[in-house]
């Protein structure tokens, strides 16, 4: 999974941005940083959180980011310095655009009914515009957004899909096309964080047949850049899942704002550590999977025993996200833990149209996605069994044909000569070639009377050709067919025929005729004493 450091090049916090946390392993509550800690602890207290909970959050963030626990003090210090009112830390402005969405991601992130330690981290940013969360509304709020964009260096959060349909009119906000809003807002952003799978690949809105032309943010901006409507695309961090997990967002924010870096991204611009392992690999029901203990029906005894949901179409084995570790709703549970098979919501792929996560995983209770065939949506297994059935029936019918034509007892009689060779005697590999070689050895002209022989297509003509060409010295049989056979035998006695592209590897020399028999059809039969690899064991 290749990180994309190039995306990070040019990524700098604003000159007045957050101070990079000082290095060092000392805990931040040590003497020396007392004033800010006091202030910060007051804020924690106001929110009903003790310092121990706070440090546990920092440890969780370190784990999510893949950092060593030695980084916990550094993260704690960075958080303390950045939280509003704790120090002179200045907040990074942020715009939260809500496009075609169900507001589920906002709900997921803003569900802090009671004071929540995660909201402290969200206090790192100054959210100047968010349709759902902002207290203001209407013109004044749009004005605030405009001023933020003008000032530049803000974080742009985008929730929901962009709609290109009807020339961009499928989605209008504040009398402006969604496409134009995004292009404008992206122009001066520090970074774009696509929150939830809809912003990543279009999500539900982009599912077949996608009449509104829903598209993810990254692919849309690529198109806008190719069309010359925007000059550059700021770094994009895709944070899929449906809805987005607050823990994932916090981890990304800590990376971007406090550690002044982009998280390590995979080829889909997702944080590699969050979306690097399959859900299956970390699933608490994995033991049941290995034991072969499955739920086949909801409401069954197996379901009550929390058996593996694989047979119910769980997409855990092919979906990469750390859901089983981070869990949801303040770590109280997640889909599989609450009894639902994984729907694969994290498998959003912004790089390809037509591989929308919903299309890729529906039906959610089936093991395969359906494949589209001319507007039909068919289970791949149905097609496979259908084709196999047709082949099996065809073979059975063919078998009756073989029986009817008497080929089942050793096949039909062999052709005397290859059909192609008959028409091309001078290039032939069969009897004609042998005759040609015989002619060469005997110094005769080949082909003799080629023009009339080449026209011959029926058996007697060809046999005549063989006779005339080179078999005359040895063939004594009367019938033309026998003649052709004798021609081959003769050639075999004359010597090895050197063929282009294939050489029989064995000692040079003429095969010795041991016995000569004649079959009822008059074919000359002979045996060759050829050395056999396993000749001695019989």
């Amino acid at each position, binding site marked *: 999974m290749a990180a994309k450091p190039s995306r990070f090049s040019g990524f700098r916090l604003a000159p007045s941005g957050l101070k990079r946390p000082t290095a060092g392993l000392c805990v931040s509550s040590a003497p020396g940083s007392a004033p800010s800690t006091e202030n910060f602890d007051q804020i924690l207290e106001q929110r009903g959180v003790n310092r121990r909970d706070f440090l546990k959050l920092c440890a969780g963030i370190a784990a999510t980011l893949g950092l060593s626990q030695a980084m916990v003090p550094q993260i704690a210090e960075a958080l303390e310095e950045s939280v509003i009112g704790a120090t002179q830390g200045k907040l990074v402005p942020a715009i939260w655009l809500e496009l075609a969405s169900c507001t589920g991601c906002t709900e997921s992130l803003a569900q802090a009914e009671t004071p929540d330690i995660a909201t402290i981290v969200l206090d790192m940013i100054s959210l100047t515009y968010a349709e759902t969360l902002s207290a203001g509304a209407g013109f004044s709020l749009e004005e605030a957004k405009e001023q933020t964009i003008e000032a530049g260096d803000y974080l742009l959060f985008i929730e929901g899909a962009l709609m290109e349909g009807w020339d961009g009119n499928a989605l209008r906000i504040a009398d402006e096309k969604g496409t134009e809003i995004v292009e404008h807002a992206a122009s001066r952003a520090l970074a774009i964080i696509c929150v939830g799978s809809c912003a990543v690949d279009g999500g539900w809105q982009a599912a077949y047949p996608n009449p509104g032309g829903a598209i993810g943010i990254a692919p849309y901006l690529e198109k806008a850049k190719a069309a010359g409507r925007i000059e550059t695309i700021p770094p994009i961090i895709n944070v899929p899942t449906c809805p987005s997990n607050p823990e994932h967002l916090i981890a990304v924010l800590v990376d971007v704002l406090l550690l002044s870096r982009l998280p390590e991204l995979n080829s889909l611009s997702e944080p590699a550590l969050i979306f690097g392992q399959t859900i299956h690999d970390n699933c608490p029901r994995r033991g049941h999977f290995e034991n072969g203990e*499955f739920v086949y029906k909801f409401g069954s005894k197996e379901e009550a025993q929390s058996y593996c949901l694989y047979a119910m179409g769980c997409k855990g084995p092919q979906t990469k996200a750390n859901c089983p570790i981070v869990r949801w709703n303040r770590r109280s549970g997640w889909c599989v833990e609450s009894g639902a098979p994984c729907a694969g919501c994290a498998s959003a792929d912004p790089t390809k149209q037509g*591989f929308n996560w919903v299309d890729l995983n529906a039906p959610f209770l089936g093991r395969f996605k359906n494949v589209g065939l001319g507007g039909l949506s068919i289970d791949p297994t149905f097609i496979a069994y259908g084709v196999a059935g047709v082949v099996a029936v065809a073979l059975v019918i063919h078998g009756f044909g073989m029986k009817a034509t008497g*080929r089942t007892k050793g096949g039909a009689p062999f052709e005397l*000569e*290859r059909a*192609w060779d008959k028409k091309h005697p001078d290039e032939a590999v*069969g009897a004609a070639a042998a005759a040609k070689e015989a002619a060469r050895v005997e110094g005769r002209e080949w082909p003799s009377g080629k023009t009339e022989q080449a026209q011959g297509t029926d058996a007697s003509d060809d046999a005549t050709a063989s006779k005339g060409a080179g078999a005359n010295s040895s063939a004594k049989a009367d019938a033309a067919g026998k003649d052709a056979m004798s021609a081959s035998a003769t050639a075999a006695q004359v010597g090895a025929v050197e063929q282009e592209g294939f050489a029989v*590897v064995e000692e040079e020399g003429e095969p010795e005729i041991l016995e000569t*028999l004649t079959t009822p059809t008059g074919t000359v039969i002979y*045996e060759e004493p050829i050395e056999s690899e396993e000749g001695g064991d019989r």
Partner: protein
Amino acid sequence: MAHLAHYREAHPLPFVLTHWINVIAMVILILTGFYIHYPPFEGFMGVARGAHILFGAVLVLNMLTRVVLAFFIKSAPTGGTRETAPDYKVFLPQADNRHQFGAWIKYYLFLKKDHPLGAKYGVPQKLAYLALPFLILIMAFTGLCLWGPTMNFGPFYGFTELVGGLMVIRIIHYYLMWVFILFMFVHVYLANIEGLSPTKLMFLRKEHGGLVYDPKVHNIVGEDDLEQHGHH
């Protein structure tokens, strides 16, 4: 007696063994693959996955062994002869096959009454066998794209992203399995429809008399009834 004599030189012992291993590995892979795709009964997943991975490796190693041995072992270039040639030449299209593709297709479709002359393998047969090593490699590659311990390794990860995700890889892997199944349908059918002698030779090394083919003249030159005129 219209078929060629079946001599052991057509299938030297090492190739009989690799054929046996192919049969066993493919059957186990297909059965466990069906189970892994959808487990119809309980209690077998751990064994099925272990066997699937093990025999996947066996199939690949067996294929590589077979290909390498083809350069060191000689086999009969056609039925009906005890002469031998380097096996890789026998496996590739050879002079005996030249211009015979149409004839074979016509024969199979009952448009041609007499049996086409050929080499040890007819033209369609030879093309199918040549495709198999590549199919096995693609199977192994897509299998490793799906296997947890290898799915994030560069080439596998890159290919998965290229085709659009693990679901797509699964469907490719599944359909390729059906290619193997259909191959086996046709292979078993064609090997036995004109008599069981080819199967007895391949699996049991039992020889059978028939017409004698001379690879030097690329044609049938006689007849060898092993039982009546037992030689050697």
